[in-house]
């Protein structure tokens, strides 16, 4: 191969390789498929009609669990699902209509207030919005 051809091939190859090597990671970073946990302000928690009355669903809000409750009266309520005592995940108890922490039997009402047990603070509450067929939960502040 002549020197000039070699340089042209070398140049063209390097250009292509550089473009590919740059574009791939750039695209991977520029087009993230998931929002960063800490910056997530709202999330689609469920579809309308997905939850029967007096039932609840744990969903991922950022990196943490949250709970969406459809009360017996059909009111939608969303709260953080991490207990304020030792950050275990709480669950909805349909018979009492309260949120219960299985780790140390902490109990909260649906406004997030502590009813019993060791939790020192109420659960954070979120706003709930029905947008078309989706139930969207958003942080209040």
């Amino acid at each position, binding site marked *: 191969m002549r*020197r*000039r051809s070699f*340089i*042209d091939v*070398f*140049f063209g190859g*390097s*250009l292509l*390789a*550089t473009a590919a*090597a*740059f574009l*791939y*990671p750039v695209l*991977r*970073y520029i087009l*993230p498929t*998931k929002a*960063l*946990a800490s910056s997530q302000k709202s999330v689609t928690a469920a579809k309308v009609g997905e939850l029967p009355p007096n039932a609840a669903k744990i969903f*991922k809000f*950022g*990196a*943490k*669990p949250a709970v969406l409750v459809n009360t017996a009266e059909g009111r939608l309520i969303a709260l953080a699902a*991490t207990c304020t005592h*030792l*950050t*275990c*995940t709480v669950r909805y108890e349909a018979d009492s209509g309260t949120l219960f922490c*299985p*780790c*140390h*039997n902490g109990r909260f009402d649906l406004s997030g207030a*502590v009813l*019993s*047990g*060791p939790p*020192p*603070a109420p659960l954070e509450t979120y706003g709930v919005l029905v947008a078309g067929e989706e139930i969207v939960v958003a942080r209040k502040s």
Partner: protein
Amino acid sequence: MKRPTFASLFVIGFLGLPAAGLAQGNSCLDCHKELDGALQAAAVAFAQDVHGQFGLSCRDCHGGNPATDDVDKAKDKSFKGAPKRERIPEFCGGCHADAAKMRGFNPSLRVDQLDQYWTSRHGQRLKAGDAKVAVCTDCHGAHGVQTARFPKSMTFPWNIPQTCGRCHADKALMASYLLPAGQLEDYRASVHARALFDKKDLSAPACNDCHGNHGAYPPEVGSVSGVCRQCHPSAGELFAKSPHKKAFVEIEAGECGACHGNHKIEAPTNALIGSTAGSACIQCHEAGSKAWTTAAELRSLLEEFESGTASAEVALDAADRKGVEVSEARFKLQDVHTILVSAKNLTHGLDLAEIRKAIVDGENALAEVEAAGQKALAEARFRRRGLVVATICLALLAAALALKIRRLKEKRMAS
């Protein structure tokens, strides 16, 4: 801070007594402010007193006539002066044990404080003639009394340990009762104190939450668990079903206190379980016994699971710092954390099969998180390698450009 309601002012006005004092000035305060020492301090402190804020004046407790500047006339037949120390509970109880009187100021305020006080160790000793014990004013103050909801009040939660400690940390005073005086120091080193003082968690227990306030009394061995269960019901329920329950009754050990202590209750760690120094188990179980071996196994199970959880979290943190999205894995890790905390609590019940099952469930969930963490770290490594490759390619491009430019120059020179 509580303000007088319209209803309370109406009642005060109807009764006439405090209103008269307010309307006609208060010669008690006028004179006492000119005096020295304690006589002056009482008048100054009363400006911040909750009773004054509700329209009450000196005469409502001490009698007399504050409408006149003549000292002799002010100290008329109704004048009671300062009560003797041993009379203070009845003195305060004159209103605070009277539901009809209290209703006009604060209908929700309890009126059984005096009855409770007589059941307290303080009250019992006072009745027996010991005037050194705490009376109302020792905990609430005399003329600067504040509601327990006011942060500067002596009875506000984070002031209570110091209020009780004024006597109970006094070594000389406590020695006269053959009582220890280290409770305040011990409490300050406890997990409860850290929650109350450092985290400002007003639900954390202070002295009165375990001993009572007006009816303060040292809990008997048998009632300690009942006290702790007010906030820790699940530990109590599990313990009641455990083989320890019967054994502790037999040896008259205070259930919770035997392992966790009383005033100096530290945050429980795995070190509290097991067969090594610092474990509560070896207080009773001999080395080599079945229970001793079980304790060691339990410690090992918990430590291994906890260590795996911590490692997974470290991996996720590392991946997070390198810019890899790991919220899904963190969401799963939350389940693992819940199982870990539950498993630790299950140790109160000593049902080994149940604890093992919880840990196996937790380890299965943990395996998923660990895999996600390793995948995220692999992704971060891949990106780093990509950066190295891109840099090499860039260097090659620069070299090729240099060669191309050199060749173009040579070509121009040749032509």
